[in-house]
């Protein structure tokens, strides 16, 4: 059956609605962009470049020739089976084993569970036993497994000349170096390590201090998050750390803190925060928490805020004082803030005060300690302690800083320097010239993972010791709340590496050097139990229950608290184009640079900018405009773009057509030091802030991270600094291509993400289903006659799931035999016989349906919980063997992620014939800086009437009995019709042999080096096919997990009718990794399943539902929770107002008023109250 869908032509009024735009070009509305939108794939995505026709023919001729030679005869090759000689314990070939471990990350250990296949780790999951994270993971935990198989990791220990040496030789080199200090006080001995929560290491450090009292022990992290703890520790005069309980907070104020993005315990915070945002019904709408954010960079926290104030980071301390002045009487309000900012602070403080004991203030760790102390005072005033936060006692850390160590080195006081991990030559603060300092040491022992900047700065090397990955190490550590967790190896070190604790123990000539034995000893001390049973239980569970840090009960000294304001008098800085500020943020891809050689990390689009493989200088649209003619209207060929002259522009017009983001490279000068990077105009950034993401532009790095991004460390003076003053920016007249996935898949501002306010939802719970074109079309499903009451009623979810014929494709599954005919299953599968009045004359028995038929899989994604963190994207890549394609291919729109997160901006600027109603310069188009952000995770929705299926000429994609849209790779011939017909654009095509060839050799065909690195292959999930060139692929709802669960269930109940997998058993990879539990998956035939209950929610809707494709993945609309008392409080979400004006029921009086539109008489909008119709 062919179906044609006609999108109604938008009316003039609709075209002139407010701007709901997805990119700068979208906002511009230029015709190239329109053409680009109308194309399925960007121009050039389906053509080969770099290879012309002549070359192509040459290569093909050669390959045909080789094929002739290569025929090895018709005999089947003989294959061998190699069983174990002795079966290892618990190891069944073909069955995955799961072991607990934890990832050391910036002084915190993240509890994990690792899936291994015959001792080969393939996938990382969160450890659900650790309640704060509850099985969720961050992208960093997800990508870390690929580092284990990094082809460029150090494969041997090396001596001073760089020659590979054996482990025994390495051990003796350590011994030699240590013996020089035997019997001395350790003067001239220095260590530089990364921060660690490992009690075993802490033991070693204290025995180091005992043995060599004069030795220097310094710790350094590229991204230092320790300021908040230091500030509170100073107040309480003991080492403490703040543990927040965002789930208990109803009102949250974040001062430049990305607490769900990168601050300590981000995964746990995200989970707790989402708990406060999830609502099951309209009655709970008003119970939602409310988030206020004042920040300079558009962070994940800011993207999820209900009220967001753009503010320079240098003014955040003063703003903290302004808010505090309403909460803490002794704090004086600084002068200089605008009326709006003062009003904002006042109302926000009032709202926080109205929720004493249920409110929370957090501040970014880059802010000075005084700010954090003011935050402590505010939280005290809000009675947060013991309710929404706790101060827990941590272990003392007596390390010195890298700056002190560098000073000692420069003074030629260090004879032997031991560098344990990290990469100080790359990420040391700019005030420390680490390379020259390092060269002053007598000799250096380096424990390193790969050849990095620190390695290339070697001159006085004594030994290079290859470090182990955490998945091949024994160790221990503490999670954020202090829970004692193991680091357990999944396999023996691949290249005989050494762990930090072993090296230290050897250096100290300890009797016990084996890391396992050391950890065992520490465990016995901490747990006070020495039996193997307790130890094994700890390893099995991955946490030691009851070992978390205890909350400190000592009250703050009142005089100390009262004294804070006297030490704290921040001023408001007035920034402008010539006096900019710089804000450093860790890379969302590489963190501090450690994941630079990790393809998953690099290729995962940045959550906000959607840039892959690079970083950029992020600036506001206002600054861009002031820098000169920013608003890129490159196709008009007039004026300047970013100050570049016309000639350059003309030369690059062709490149623009490819949908690439071409952007000028600018120089940033801070205190005489200059770095450069491409500009990216990012709405939502404070006017005069330059956001510089760290962690890119590594010079000495492996093959993957080569030439990616720009290094901004040289202008960062200290690990926590935000510079201000004297920051200059200037054009270099060069340009750069950014591989940005943002402009793919424009959705033209329809009711894609449906949004409402908490207030509206509680008054009109049905608002979600009143949006969208389908709310005006005839019902997709007929009414049926109820068996018991005999009355006509709407179908239930379950009946709907069974009502349509599976597939709608040319392929019908062959019929069963007698059994099939006996059951009334067929009755359900017959297309509905619609009577003229839209009723369906058929009786369905729900119980019988769910008893007799296969389970039907479905998914719900809750927009209220999704924070856009990308964890699902990487989890999917890891689970499903999704290849990395590289920057060059992303530029051609060939990225392969099965799951993507679309990020939409919406603004309150009303577009009226191309002019802006509330724009002071109505003749000029501007990019708004005040935006609201909406995230939408999209993967194959497994449509019941899938448009992809009906166009496949070879039936490679058909429906199965469980409602899955299957994809048979071996049938696929690569016509790509299906991708063209997919309304969600979720199908991915293997344009080249991503899995057979290394990046950079994709185009060389059979003449290029074949095969990829063996190490990389070891990560592949054996339960999923590795796809070849020329086939289409897409999300399968993790069918391998579904099948495994079904088979396991049957294996547990052999020969029985118990065939239904219980709800909750199957978790898709994205669902499992989601820190906020935004994704729910399960059987929609089961009325009691979690997913069925969510699908019955009044917030549930299908994206593009009017196409009648009946997707199995549906979404719950997003509810924002604005405070009406706030200045510029929006009556409806921006996206909603736009919808109302363009496709909905028009703007109501409130909305017109908010947008500054003349009431009445405007024929562009119909001021009808939205809601009922």
């Amino acid at each position, binding site marked *: 059956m062919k179906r044609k869908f006609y999108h109604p032509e938008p009316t003039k009024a609709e075209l002139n609605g407010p701007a709901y735009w997805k990119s700068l070009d979208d906002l511009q509305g230029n015709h190239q962009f329109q053409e680009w939108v109308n194309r399925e794939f960007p121009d050039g995505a389906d053509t080969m470049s770099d290879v012309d026709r002549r070359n192509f023919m040459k290569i093909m001729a050669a390959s045909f020739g080789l094929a002739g030679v290569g025929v090895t005869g018709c005999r089947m090759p*003989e294959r061998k089976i190699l*069983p174990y000689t002795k079966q290892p314990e618990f190891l069944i*070939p*073909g069955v995955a084993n799961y072991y607990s471990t934890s990832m050391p990350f910036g002084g915190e250990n993240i509890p994990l569970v690792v899936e291994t296949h015959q001792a080969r780790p393939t996938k990382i999951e969160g450890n659900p036993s650790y309640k704060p994270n509850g099985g969720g993971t961050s992208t960093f935990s997800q990508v870390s497994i690929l580092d284990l198989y990094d082809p460029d990791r150090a494969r041997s220990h090396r001596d001073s000349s760089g020659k590979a040496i054996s482990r025994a030789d390495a051990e003796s080199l350590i011994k030699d170096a240590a013996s020089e200090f035997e019997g001395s006080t350790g003067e001239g001995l220095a260590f530089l390590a990364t921060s660690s929560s490992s009690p075993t290491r802490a033991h070693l450090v204290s025995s180091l201090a005992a043995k060599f009292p004069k030795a220097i022990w310094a710790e350094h992290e590229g991204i230092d998050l320790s300021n908040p703890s230091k500030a509170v520790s100073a107040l309480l005069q003991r080492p403490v750390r703040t543990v927040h309980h965002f789930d208990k907070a109803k009102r949250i104020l974040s001062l430049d803190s990305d607490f769900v993005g990168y601050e300590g315990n981000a995964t746990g915070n995200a989970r707790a925060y989402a708990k406060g945002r999830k609502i099951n019904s309209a009655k709970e709408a008003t119970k939602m928490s409310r988030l206020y954010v004042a920040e300079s960079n558009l962070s994940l926290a800011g993207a999820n805020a209900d009220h967001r104030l753009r503010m320079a980071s240098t003014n955040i301390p003063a703003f903290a004082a302004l808010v505090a002045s309403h909460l803490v009487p002794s704090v004086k309000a600084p002068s200089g803030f605008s009326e709006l900012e003062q009003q904002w602070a006042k109302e926000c403080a009032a709202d926080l005060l109205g929720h004493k004991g249920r409110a929370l203030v957090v501040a970014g760790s880059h802010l000075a300690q005084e700010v954090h102390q003011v935050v402590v005072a505010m939280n005290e005033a809000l009675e947060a302690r013991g309710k929404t936060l706790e101060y827990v006692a941590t272990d003392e850390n007596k390390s010195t800083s890298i700056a002190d160590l560098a000073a000692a080195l420069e003074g030629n006081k260090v004879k032997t320097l031991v560098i344990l991990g990290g990469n100080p030559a790359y990420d040391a603060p700019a005030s420390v010239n680490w390379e020259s300092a390092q060269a002053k040491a007598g000799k250096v022992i380096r424990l390193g993972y790969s050849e990095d900047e620190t390695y290339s700065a070697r001159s006085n090397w004594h030994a290079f010791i290859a470090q182990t990955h955490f998945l091949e190490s024994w160790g221990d550590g503490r999670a954020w709340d202090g829970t004692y967790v193991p680091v357990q190896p999944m396999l023996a070190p691949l290249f005989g590496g050494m762990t930090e604790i072993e090296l230290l123990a050897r250096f100290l000539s300890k009797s016990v050097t084996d890391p396992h034995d050391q950890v065992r000893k520490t465990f016995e001390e901490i747990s006070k139990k020495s039996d193997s049973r307790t130890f094994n239980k700890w390893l099995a569970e991955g946490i030691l229950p009851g070992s978390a840090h205890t909350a400190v009960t000592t009250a703050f000294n009142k005089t100390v608290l009262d004294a804070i304001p006297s030490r704290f008098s921040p001023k408001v800085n007035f920034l402008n184009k010539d006096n900019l500020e710089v804000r450093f943020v860790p890379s969302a891809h590489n963190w501090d640079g450690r994941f630079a050689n990790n393809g998953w990390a690099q290729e995962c689009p940045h959550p906000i900018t959607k840039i892959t493989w690079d970083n950029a200088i992020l600036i506001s649209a206002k600054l861009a405009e002031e820098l000169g003619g920013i608003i890129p209207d490159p196709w008009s060929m007039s004026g300047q773009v970013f100050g570049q002259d016309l000639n350059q522009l003309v030369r690059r017009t062709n490149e623009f057509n490819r949908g690439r983001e071409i952007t000028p490279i600018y120089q940033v000068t801070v205190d005489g030091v200059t770095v450069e990077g491409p500009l990216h105009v990012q709405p939502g950034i404070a006017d005069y802030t330059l956001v510089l993401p760290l962690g890119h532009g590594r010079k000495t790095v492996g093959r993957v991270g080569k030439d990616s991004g720009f290094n901004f460390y040289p202008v960062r003076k200290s690990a926590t600094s935000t510079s201000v003053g004297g920051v200059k920016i200037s054009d270099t007249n060069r340009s750069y291509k950014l591989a940005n996935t943002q402009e793919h898949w424009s959705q033209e501002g329809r009711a894609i993400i449906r949004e409402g306010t908490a207030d509206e939802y509680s008054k009109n719970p049905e608002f979600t289903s009143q949006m969208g074109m389908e709310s005006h079309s005839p019902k997709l499903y007929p009414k049926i006659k109820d068996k018991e009451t005999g009355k006509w009623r709407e179908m239930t979810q379950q009946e709907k799931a069974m009502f349509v014929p599976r597939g709608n494709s040319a392929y019908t599954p*062959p019929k069963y035999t007698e059994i099939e005919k006996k059951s009334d299953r067929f009755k359900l599968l017959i297309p509905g016989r619609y009577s003229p009045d839209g009723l369906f004359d058929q009786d369905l028995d729900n119980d019988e349906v769910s008893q007799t038929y296969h389970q039907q899989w479905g998914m719900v994604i809750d927009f209220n919980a999704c924070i856009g963190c990308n964890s699902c994207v990487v989890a999917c890549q890891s689970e499903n063997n999704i290849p990395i394609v590289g920057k060059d291919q992303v530029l051609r729109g060939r990225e392969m992620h099965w799951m993507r997160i679309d990020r939409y901006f919406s603004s309150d600027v009303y577009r009226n014939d191309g002019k802006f109603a509330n724009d002071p310069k109505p003749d000029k188009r501007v990019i708004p800086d005040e935006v609201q952000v909406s995230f939408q995770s999209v993967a194959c929705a497994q449509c019941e009437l899938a448009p992809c299926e009906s166009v496949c000429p070879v039936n490679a994609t058909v429906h199965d009995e469980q409602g899955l849209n299957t994809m048979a790779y071996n049938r696929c011939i690569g016509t790509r019709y299906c991708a063209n017909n997919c309304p969600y654009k979720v199908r991915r095509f293997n344009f080249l042999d991503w899995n057979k060839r290394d990046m950079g050799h994709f185009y060389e065909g059979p003449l290029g080096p074949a095969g990829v690195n063996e190490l990389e292959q070891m990560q592949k999930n054996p339960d999923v096919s590795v796809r070849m060139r020329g086939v289409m692929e897409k999300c*399968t709802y993790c069918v391998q997990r579904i099948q495994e669960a079904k088979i396991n269930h049957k*294996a547990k109940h052999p020969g029985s009718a118990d065939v239904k997998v219980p709800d909750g058993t199957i978790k898709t990879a994205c669902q499992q990794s989601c820190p906020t539990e935004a994704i729910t998956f399960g059987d929609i035939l089961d009325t009691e399943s979690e997913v069925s209950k969510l699908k019955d929610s009044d917030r549930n809707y299908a994206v593009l539902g009017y196409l009648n494709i009946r997707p199995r993945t549906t979404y719950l609309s997003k509810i924002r929770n604005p405070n009406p008392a706030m200045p510029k409080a929006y009556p409806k979400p921006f996206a909603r107002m736009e919808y109302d004006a363009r496709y909905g029921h028009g703007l109501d009086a409130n909305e017109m008023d908010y947008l500054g539109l003349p009431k009445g008489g405007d024929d562009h909008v119909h001021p009808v109250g939205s809601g009922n119709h």
Partner: protein
Amino acid sequence: MANIFPRSANWAPIKIIIGIFFLATVVTSAVTYYATPKYLRVGYEPKQPVPFDHSWHAGKDGLNLDCRFCHNNVTKSEHSNVPPTSTCMSCHAVIKSTSPKLAPVRDSLLTGDPIEWVKVHKTPDYVYFNHAAHVNRGVSCVECHGRVDEMQTVKHAKSHSMAFCLDCHRNPENAVRPIEHVFDLGWHPGGENATNKDQKKAQHELGTQLVEEWKVQPPLSCFGCHR
């Protein structure tokens, strides 16, 4: 101008057409017959490094060991594992401990190098066959592997083509048997002495009943085996 072609050339086109037709028929028939697993795989009987005799170990007239004595993970895993050397040696450390035929087994245990068994049944990489799913649902080993308990050297008994799989997936009642008889390769639904026809009838009746009772619904879609 004289005729270049002789008169007989008039028949050439027809002869060529007939020739091509004939050739096409032969090629098509040959490919359909020879290039199928039925021809290429069935009967494959490679020489193994150790002449392990299934008919003695598992056969009725021999030790009559259960399949799961060695292939112990077949009910839990997708693979039916080939036993580790230690399993062989658990008996052969005592029995025939000096037999020269068992030299590779003893060497393997001493050196730790595995015995290199030659693979007989090979599913393609894109097929995810699962043993546990079948043996726990009443499909006996014999359905796919034949009477291994009567083979001295294991050979490929059935075709294992996709059609072979689908035959059974479409009509599971012809293969499903009570769980307790799954590993009894010589079991007959109609009793020992029933005729072939009666056996089939008995199997069909029993199978139909079990399929109904256990709700056996073998997947017929691609994702059942390919993913």
